[in-house]
């Protein structure tokens, strides 16, 4: 690691520059040594206490850096003139002079147990503000430094709300002097180490008659309208509302352990309304009354918030001492809170009320019992008369009942006979029904059989139909054939007639030839034979 080399070089820091050059030329490799010197320079710049300028250094000695922000650091310092320990806010650059004077003027005008006091300001070579050091001595005489609320978490919900109440008192004092903090968050509220009191610090972004920058705040704790107040004609009301929101954001962080809004440079997201708080960081439920107070502190509509920081302090004090808050308007709720505040008086009152009630109830009960007794006597006599009447009525009814029972016996006998008869008839009907069912089943079977036969017949009919159509087609074809045969026969007969006619002519000719032949044979027998073998050639 670098520390060995850096420490070695740090030991040489007081050496003259020529000696360093000699080291560079003679010992380590140049590149490594150069880097080591860079490290040394940086660490030296980091560790050394800065100068306060000639006048500042003459009076103050910086002891320890307590906190560091973007543009300034807070140091614990000793005031050699007054021999006391103070806190010094030292600005980083020369442009801090205006800011230092403005912040000191703004916060220096506020007198409150809950605002860190400004003791002095210097705007010379280096600009710094001298402030009261938030610290206390413990029983051993050791000085304990106060820490920001962001690092000193409250031990209970009660303590957290008490810190917010104290911060509200400090803010109220600043508002009375037209100073508006605009940057309330747990980092800017210091908590004393022993008495655990809250003190507001860092008025660097405050708005006042001494002027202020256009915008300001811490991401996560800024009111929704934080970028809208400059140049507004209702700026004072809105600046008060921003600080009221800041108190709500501070309370929210103490209870929930986180900022109410997103901590991001995405300003739009950081300006959203925070979610409702149901439980503390330890998982304990947040009382409904406190939830309502928080909701009003963090209302996105600035006009719906508390009108002043004093109202907030009073409201929180009421919550802490179980007195009615502005939300507790009901008599029952107020009575319950009063009982919570005065438990002994409430308990005594409750006992006395209970005893008085019991005596009143007993007296009322005795009178009521006497009245009840008289009513009962009267009612008893009436009931006796009723009883005599009822006895006579009972005798009459008993006689009627005997007569009715006799009739009932006769009717029961008749009914039994009737039931037997009905049973016989029922059996008869059942037999008939069974026989009919059997017949029905048989008829049904026959029906099924007939339906089968009918289907067969239908099939046969279809076959016969198709056969008939086939025969009809054959018949039509045969009839055409017969007609053609008849015509052929007529034609053949005609041809035969022609042939017969020709045959007759040929026969005639033949006979003529035969006759001629006979004639010739008779004239020349050899020539006649030749003609006889080829008669047609002759034609």
């Amino acid at each position, binding site marked *: 690691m670098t520390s060995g080399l850096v420490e070695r070089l740090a030991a040489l820091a007081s050496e003259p520059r020529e000696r360093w050059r000699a080291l560079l030329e003679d010992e380590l490799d140049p590149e490594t040594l150069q880097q080591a010197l860079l490290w040394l320079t*940086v660490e030296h710049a980091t560790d050394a206490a800065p100068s306060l300028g000639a006048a500042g250094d003459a009076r103050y000695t910086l002891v320890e850096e307590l906190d560091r922000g973007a543009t300034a650091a807070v140091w614990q310092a000793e005031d050699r003139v007054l021999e006391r320990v103070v806190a010094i806010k030292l600005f980083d650059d020369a442009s801090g002079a205006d800011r230092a004077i403005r912040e000191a003027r703004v916060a220096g005008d506020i007198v409150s147990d809950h605002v860190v006091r400004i003791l002095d300001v210097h705007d010379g070579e280096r600009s710094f503000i001298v402030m009261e050091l938030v610290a206390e001595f413990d029983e051993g005489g050791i000085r304990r430094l106060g820490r920001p609320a962001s690092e000193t978490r409250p031990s209970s919900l009660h303590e957290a709300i008490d810190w917010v109440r104290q911060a509200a008192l400090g803010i109220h004092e600043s508002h009375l002097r037209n100073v508006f903090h605009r940057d309330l968050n747990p980092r800017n509220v210091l908590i004393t180490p022993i008495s655990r009191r809250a003190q507001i610090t860092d008025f660097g972004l405050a708005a006042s008659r001494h002027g202020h920058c256009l915008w300001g705040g811490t991401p996560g704790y800024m009111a929704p309208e934080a*970028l809208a107040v400059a140049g507004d004609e209702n700026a004072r009301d809105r600046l008060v509302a921003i600080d009221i929101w800041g108190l709500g954001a501070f309370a929210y962080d103490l209870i929930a352990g986180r900022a109410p809004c997103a901590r991001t440079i995405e300003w739009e997201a950081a300006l959203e309304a925070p979610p409702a708080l149901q439980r503390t960081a330890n998982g304990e439920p947040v009382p409904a009354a406190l939830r309502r107070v928080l909701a009003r502190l963090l209302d996105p509509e600035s006009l719906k918030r508390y009108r002043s920081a004093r109202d907030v302090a009073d409201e929180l004090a009421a919550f802490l001492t179980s007195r009615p808050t502005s939300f507790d308007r009901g008599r029952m709720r107020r009575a319950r809170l009063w009982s919570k505040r005065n438990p002994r008086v409430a308990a005594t009152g409750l006992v006395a009320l209970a005893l008085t009630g019991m005596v009143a109830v007993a007296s009322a009960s005795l009178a009521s019992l006497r009245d009840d007794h008289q009513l009962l006597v009267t009612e008893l006599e009436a009931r006796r008369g009723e009883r005599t009447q009822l006895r006579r009525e009972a005798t009459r009814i008993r006689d009627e009942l005997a007569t009715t029972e006799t009739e009932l016996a006769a009717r029961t006998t008749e009914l039994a006979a009737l039931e037997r008869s009905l049973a016989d008839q029922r059996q008869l009907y059942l037999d008939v029904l069974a026989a009919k069912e059997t017949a029905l089943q048989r008829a049904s079977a026959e029906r099924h059989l007939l339906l089968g036969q009918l289907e067969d017949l239908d099939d046969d009919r279809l076959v016969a139909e198709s056969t008939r159509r086939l025969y009809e087609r054959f018949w039509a074809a045969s009839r055409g054939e017969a007609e053609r045969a008849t015509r052929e026969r007529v034609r053949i007969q005609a041809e035969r007639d022609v042939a017969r006619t020709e045959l007759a002519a040929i026969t005639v000719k033949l006979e003529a030839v035969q006759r001629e032949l006979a004639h010739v044979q008779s004239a020349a027998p050899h020539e006649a034979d030749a003609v006889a073998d080829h008669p047609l050639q002759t034609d």
Partner: protein
Amino acid sequence: MIQPEQRAVDDTMAAQFERIIRRVKRSMNYRGSYSTQDILGSLVARWVQSGEWQRLKTLPEPARQIGPSVRRFLLDRLDHLRIRGHRIELETLELPDDNTLTEQVELAELRCWLDLQITGLEQGTCDPRIKLPLSQPLEVGRALRLLLAGQTQRQIADTLEMSLGLVNKRIAEGTNYLIVLQGLEHGITLP
């Protein structure tokens, strides 16, 4: 004896290095409260992230015109805020001049560069140009990342389950490492 011209070079280099130290430290410090300039600075950082600066860098020097582009971006974002309710009239807002804007752009670029270097440390690697590397780059990277996310040193100690003193040491080591590296990037060599 040191020659006067050599002393002048040393002084210039020392001033440059001091500027680097201040810039890196200011960028690394826990940023509690934001003033108008801080809010505008964060908006300029978003302008750089939007890619507009990369585009402008490709243009020749006379045509770059950072001022109008940044101002247009800022007014657009602020106008967007105004849509969500009663907002400040933009005429009352004094926008930064070109020099301030250039400074803010450089700071925004520095933040991007720091973010990149911290990502490297989170992966356990140091820049090879550093001859005297960190012993625990992973722890340093995580601590710096949480610091940049706005957590206090106590919150970082709780998150990383480390002592407050160790967190302070890691943050100091990491900040110094980034300063030295930034110095090397700018060609700073001592003496």
